[in-house]
């Protein structure tokens, strides 16, 4: 079906002429007529049988109350983290034991068929070991976190969070629905960036896209959880997972504050403009069906994110092993690069290996800690890493302090988005400039914050 330009112009011209002859606002009259009909129909069709307690309003009175709205959000956030950390501990340790036990078996096979040492090293010590780490560390927390999160989502809690937070986002010149995209970002920042489509104003959409990275995605939560344990474990006697949960919640809160500050900064500089209109439905609460919820969150989210991590981790593990075993002079390539980065790393309270791990972790944040461990392990003898306590020992052996763990958390929270997210931003914004900014802004902030924390810590001694 084709309409040529001449016809188009003719029709549009006629339409404009007739439109000018109309008195009053057409859209208003249409809306009024339609709603008049709607009312006529509902009056005949819907009857209120008996007045019912309005549970939605009762819940909302608490959930969005002046006094309890914010504490409740924080409490729920901490609860989700606590359940995730506590629940994931045992299965994680169990999976790690199994995988590293199997590594011995694998190594045995390789030896028995007389494979060259480099092949064994690349495949088993490189590829397999990083896979084992990624699965054992990521799968249990995700299998807990995603269903919990999906539960809150299906319950209808998330629009309430957006409702509670909107004022802050308005002050920052951003859109209230940005909160919803941030919630999505908890799962995966790439998904969060795609979710920004729900924001209609292009300016506010860009703000939401550029700042989505400041909510830690699921690939970074294992890092945060592990670092929280290391940090609190080294600092506090009688560490327990509740403290870790609070620390992680605090880090997330900081991410939200940074999001607001950066949104505000952007809306005052590069993305100037007035907040656009905001209408948000607060739907009825609905008790989710737990069965289908678990199936959906495990299939659609957990396995999806895990598969992505596995695909990236396998080659990355191999590459790190090669880098750790190709020597230039008396040092490995890995040690050379790490040594090169070390000065800058120490300046911001980290070290060369950590920075290298973040750089190599660009494809996916999940593999930052595995790479770091591999790098530290590559120097020393083989070691089984079957618990957080072992991880803590390894890190302390490599000169870590609580400050290192804290800055590692901060850097993980604030640094550049992963490659998938950057590609998604490129796709959504169709602009190289904004994609670059989406990488540069967080990185600069991460460096500045870590530097400040390190400096303050040094001054304090």
């Amino acid at each position, binding site marked *: 079906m084709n309409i040529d330009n001449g016809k188009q112009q003719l029709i549009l011209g006629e339409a404009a002429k007739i439109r000018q002859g109309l008195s009053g606002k057409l859209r208003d009259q249409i809306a009024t007529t339609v*709603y008049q009909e709607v009312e006529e129909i509902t009056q005949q069709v819907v009857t209120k049988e008996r007045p019912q307690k309005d549970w939605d309003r009762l819940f*909302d009175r608490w959930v*969005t109350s002046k006094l309890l*709205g914010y504490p409740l959000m924080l409490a729920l956030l901490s609860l989700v983290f606590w359940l995730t950390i506590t629940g994931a501990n045992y299965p994680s340790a169990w999976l790690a034991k199994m995988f590293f036990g199997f590594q011995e078996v694998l190594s045995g096979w390789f030896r028995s068929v007389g494979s060259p040492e480099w092949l064994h090293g690349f495949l088993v010590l490189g590829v397999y070991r990083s896979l084992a780490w990624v699965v054992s560390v990521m799968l249990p927390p995700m299998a807990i976190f995603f269903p919990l999160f999906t539960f809150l989502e299906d319950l209808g809690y998330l629009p309430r969070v957006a409702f509670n937070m909107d004022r802050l986002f*308005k002050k920052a010149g951003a859109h*209230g629905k940005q909160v919803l995209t941030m919630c999505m970002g908890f799962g995966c920042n790439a998904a969060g960036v795609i979710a920004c489509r729900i924001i209609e104003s292009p300016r506010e959409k860009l703000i939401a896209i550029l700042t989505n990275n400041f909510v830690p995605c699921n690939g970074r939560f294992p890092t945060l959880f592990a670092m929280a344990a290391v940090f609190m474990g080294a600092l506090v006697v009688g560490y327990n997972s509740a403290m870790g949960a609070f620390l992680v919640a605090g880090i997330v809160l900081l991410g939200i504050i940074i999001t607001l500050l950066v949104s505000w900064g952007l809306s005052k500089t590069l993305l100037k403009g007035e907040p656009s209109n905001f*209408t948000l439905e*607060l739907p009825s609460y609905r008790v989710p069906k737990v069965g289908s919820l678990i199936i959906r969150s495990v299939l659609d989210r957990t396995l999806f994110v895990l598969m992505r991590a596995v695909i990236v981790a396998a080659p990355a593990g191999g590459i790190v092993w090669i880098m750790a075993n190709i020597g230039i002079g008396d040092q490995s390539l890995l040690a050379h690069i790490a040594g090169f980065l070390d000065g800058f790393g120490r300046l911001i309270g980290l070290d060369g290996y950590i920075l290298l791990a973040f750089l190599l972790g660009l494809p996916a944040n999940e593999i930052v800690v595995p790479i770091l461990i591999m790098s530290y392990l590559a120097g020393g003898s083989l070691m089984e890493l079957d618990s957080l306590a072992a991880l803590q020992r390894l890190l302390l052996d490599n000169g870590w302090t609580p400050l290192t763990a804290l800055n590692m958390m901060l850097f993980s929270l604030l640094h550049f988005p992963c490659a998938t997210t950057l590609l998604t931003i490129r796709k959504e914004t169709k602009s190289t400039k904004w994609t670059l900014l989406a990488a540069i802004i967080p990185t600069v902030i991460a460096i500045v914050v870590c530097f400040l924390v390190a400096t303050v810590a040094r001054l304090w001694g």
Partner: protein
Amino acid sequence: MADRVMELNQLPEGASGEIVSLNSVGSVRNRMLDLGLVPQTLVTAVHRSPLGDPVAFLVRGTVIALRAEESQQVLVKLIADEKGEANHGSNQSVDRVDGLFK
């Protein structure tokens, strides 16, 4: 007895009003019309968010949150106050005026 007309965001929590006029323009106006915020519609302010803005309104069976910028553009006539008591005897149910634009 004068009707108490106010901006929608002035409506106290729990009070209901009948829309008198919609003053927003452009896309905001269209959005409001889609939500059914046409004159003579009954609106109830159900609750304020913790920081006071936005406010959630019950309109046509759904709760919709509006920022002050939007709700200021809607003028309402007070029908029932916070306690749900009718304002100066007018009936809480809204009678339609027939032939709106004949």
